[in-house]
């Protein structure tokens, strides 16, 4: 039986990004929906001295479009992103993926920033964001830097974020003529494997396989016909766990890559929005 009470900690409620960033340290960690953090604390895996609540910080939410990309505020919840009209219009694949994250309570409570910063390997959000070439803005007391999501994710539960950095926003480039599909295989709360496959109008293809290994793996091809599912399955580095062995996960990867190729072919044939 898990302990019903959480360990003791303090809570800070800053109202500006500057205040929040000034509070951050190894022992003073960002806190948003708590759908990862509070669970890890209850399980005794993390024991921060203080949580810095981001939910009442001005300017960390919302969705905005500028210079060909959509910026999603760090504290935006999965439910908000799934139903946002800008996202649905410009990034329908993101809306589709967000609509299927976890369960309705996780979607109402969990944020995109928390998803990225926790770097849980079994994430849907990271897979689609890597596929779309998204990046994140990180703010520290000394300034702001931008890192691609691909580079941000360093390993399982590990990112390049420094303890005093706050993820403030996620930038997703918009390409109107791009077509894409997303498939996930899931038997428990989180995906066992997921595949995002995108086609540029010129024919190039970008494939990302997530959830099986520590971080999503991206590959590019000149043509959809070049995608070799068995080769992709050999190249991933699965983590064996209760959802399957290494061999099994390679098998699932090949099956889902093949299905993604078929699905994308159908989408391109009918020219419908994904």
């Amino acid at each position, binding site marked *: 039986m898990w302990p019903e009470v959480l360990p003791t900690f303090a809570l800070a409620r800053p109202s500006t990004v500057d205040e929040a960033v000034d509070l951050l340290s190894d022992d003073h960690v960002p806190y948003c929906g708590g759908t990862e953090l509070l*669970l890890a604390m209850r399980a005794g895996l993390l024991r921060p001295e203080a949580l810095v609540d981001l939910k009442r910080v001005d300017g960390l939410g919302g969705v905005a479009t500028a210079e060909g990309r959509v910026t999603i505020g760090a504290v935006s919840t999965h439910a908000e992103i799934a139903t946002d009209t800008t996202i649905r219009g410009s990034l329908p694949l993101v809306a589709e993926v967000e609509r299927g994250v*976890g369960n309705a309570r996780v979607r109402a409570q969990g944020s995109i920033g928390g998803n990225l910063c926790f770097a849980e390997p079994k994430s849907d959000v990271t897979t689609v964001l890597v596929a779309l070439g998204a990046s994140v803005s990180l703010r520290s007391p000394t300034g702001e830097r931008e890192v691609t999501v691909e580079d941000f994710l360093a390993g399982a539960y590990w990112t390049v974020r420094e303890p005093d950095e706050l993820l403030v926003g996620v930038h997703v480039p918009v390409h109107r003529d791009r077509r894409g599909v997303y498939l996930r295989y899931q038997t428990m709360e989180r995906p066992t494997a997921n595949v995002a496959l995108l086609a540029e109008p010129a024919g190039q293809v970008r494939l990302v396989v997530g959830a099986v290994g520590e971080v999503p793996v991206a590959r590019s091809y000149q043509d959809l016909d070049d995608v070799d599912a068995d080769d992709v399955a050999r190249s991933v580095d699965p983590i064996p766990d209760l959802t399957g062995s290494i061999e099994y996960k390679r098998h699932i990867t090949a099956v889902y890559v093949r299905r993604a190729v078929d699905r994308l072919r159908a989408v391109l044939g009918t020219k419908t929005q994904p």
Partner: protein
Amino acid sequence: MTTMHTERTVDVNVNGAHHTRTVPVRQTLAAFLRDDLGLTGTKLSCGFQVCGVCTVLVDGRPVSACTYLAVDADASTVTTVEGLAEGERLHPLQEAFVDGFALQCGFCTPGFLMMAKALLDSCPDPSREQVVEHLEGNICRCTGYEPIVDAVLAAARSARGAEAVGE
């Protein structure tokens, strides 16, 4: 300078009644509702956002009270299963669950009712697929899910019917 607190005062409306209490920041909303306010209709099981028995609405959004801090409900409106019935009159969802035998032991029922309420409040006419998708994160160990889905659809129909009659 922002200050750190291990205790905070929450000002929260629960099922229409106002409460102002000072609570440890580590206290979950489930513990606050059950232990401090005596509202034991909200159940606890997994403690990990997985089973849904602890579902309550905070400003209309469904959350897992097992892993939601009571202090985060500050300045909010919380609805629990105790807030559904009006006196002796059951909520249409409760009626439908009883009529449709959508419960056996009843342990999961408060969670399913609150989850279903969240859906019907924003989507009064859901398809079967929408109901199934929305309830996916709730576990019932007895009933099998069909009667529960049927009951939610029946409640949606009866609520729409009542509205039409009222017009």
